[in-house]
């Protein structure tokens, strides 16, 4: 029993070390970083954070990222809900083929889609807006949301639907008032995954934007080029990208434990 907790603790320490090192770097001055190895910041400074919070090109990049991630999560989950219901409750013409085709998009490398996406979203006039990135990310998030939600919905007995129809509920009323609350854990988990995969993706987000909608993942690449190699600034920007993720995990922490088991995922 005790051996298990030692293994677990070691693993968690392994997970936390790079994050600690990032935090450590973000509180150092550039001189101290380049000066040599040190496990703790000697001249503790918040300069890097100050730069980020006062420079619009930095903090706007955060706002841009959060904008497209939220748009993407809402679109993905809202359109995936009825589709997942259809897959879990009905057979229809081409259902299996459609499901596999949806999943196959999860296997498409972003590198394959970069160039065509730039052409496509330029053509429809969305290039360099959060909408372009939000819509592009639905390519892999919608299939994932359908998959997760279908798992959760299949766990709900069909008698629930039938009883509701006998009680005189119409389909929309039943879906919104009875069915959605029943699978709220599944919606939480699906939203968590959509948020996660949209927040962490860089290749599409970077290439579908230029100035106006520049996301944080693209803004970070400039620390290496403009004024030398600013490791402190890079580290601070990195630390700030961890915060939305940490908040989202905190909200779904109970859903992760229960939720994963309920769905087939």
């Amino acid at each position, binding site marked *: 029993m005790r051996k298990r907790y030692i293994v677990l603790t070691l693993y968690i320490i392994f997970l936390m070390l790079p994050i600690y090192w990032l935090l450590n770097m973000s509180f150092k001055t550039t001189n101290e970083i380049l000066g040599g190895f040190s496990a703790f910041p000697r001249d503790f400074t918040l300069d890097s954070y100050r730069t980020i919070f006062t420079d619009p090109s930095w903090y706007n990049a955060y706002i841009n990222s959060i904008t497209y991630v939220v748009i993407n999560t809402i679109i993905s989950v809202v359109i995936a809900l009825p*589709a997942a219901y259809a897959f879990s409750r009905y057979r229809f013409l081409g259902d299996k083929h459609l499901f596999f085709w949806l999943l196959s998009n999860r296997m498409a490398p972003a590198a394959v889609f970069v160039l065509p996406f730039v052409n496509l979203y330029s053509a429809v006039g969305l290039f360099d807006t959060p909408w372009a990135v939000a819509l592009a990310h639905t390519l892999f998030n919608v299939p994932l949301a359908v998959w997760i939600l279908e798992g959760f919905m299949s766990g709900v007995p069909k008698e629930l639907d039938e009883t509701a129809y006998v009680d005189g509920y119409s389909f929309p009323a039943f879906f919104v008032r009875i069915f959605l609350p029943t699978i709220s854990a599944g919606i939480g988990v699906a939203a968590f995954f959509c948020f996660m995969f949209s927040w962490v993706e860089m290749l599409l987000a970077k290439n579908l934007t230029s100035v106006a909608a520049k996301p944080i993942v693209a803004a970070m690449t400039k620390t290496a080029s403009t004024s030398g190699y600013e490791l402190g600034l890079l580290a601070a920007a990195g630390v700030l990208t961890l915060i939305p993720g940490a908040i989202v995990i905190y909200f779904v922490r109970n859903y992760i434990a229960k939720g*994963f088991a309920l769905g087939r995922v």
Partner: protein
Amino acid sequence: MNKTFNNKAWWLVLPVFLMVAFNALVPLMTVVNYSIQETFGNNEFFWSGTTWFEQILHDEAFHDSLRRQLIFTGLILLIEIPLGLAIALCMPRNGPWVSVCLVLIALPLLVPWNVVGSMWNIMALPDIGLLGKGINALGIPFNYTRQPISAWFTVILMDVWHWTSLVVLLCYAGLVAIPDAYYQAAKVDGARPWAVFRYIQLPKLKHVLTIAVLLRFMDSFMIYTEVIVLTGGGPGSTTKFLSIDLVQKALGGFDLGPAAAFSIVYFLIILFLSWLFYTLMMREEAK
């Protein structure tokens, strides 16, 4: 569950169908279009048949990236799947520590991929990074910008850090879903821990393990951002995986024809191997 046949369900699927079709079919048509044509600019295109495909399939550089990619993905699966399963078995089933462990373990999954690269870049710097300095202090020469072995070690360690958590979460979900009755029955029979694992836990985990293998296979086969930030494909081109090669061709060289042919071959390899994994693991399950 017995499902009723009803073609009206298509109305429910329609929004998803239109959204994904817009995103997938239009670009895919573009890629196919480019892959069979030759262009000299000015939007003039000429039929070129299978030239680009032949060129890519006989390209030494493509063979090299494909070989590197297969070795990388193979190592990733060999390390992450058993490790993730082992960690999930170590997790507490209930109590206040469950949430803490889950949140800490899920954290790497929510780090943007370029930040993962930067993080390990800083971590592995030979003179001021914790990992780089640590390994050098042990007397082993380590420099991931110069030595291919160091670069590979860092890239693999980074991926293990980043993605093992996904395997842990999936396996943990599977383990929690096993009803207590199974364990009680095993206890009555006096089963040893190994027997409990082999005959109760492992069979029940087959479904989540299939998902874990598929997801880890696909994602490691598409790896781009973390590696480009960490090593840029170097030293030389020793960590240049398929996506890095493709992006260099498509965005760097504007060689649209060969890049498009590359894209299609790449996508087909992923589809084929995913199908193979899925079929093999499902056949195993059917036994």
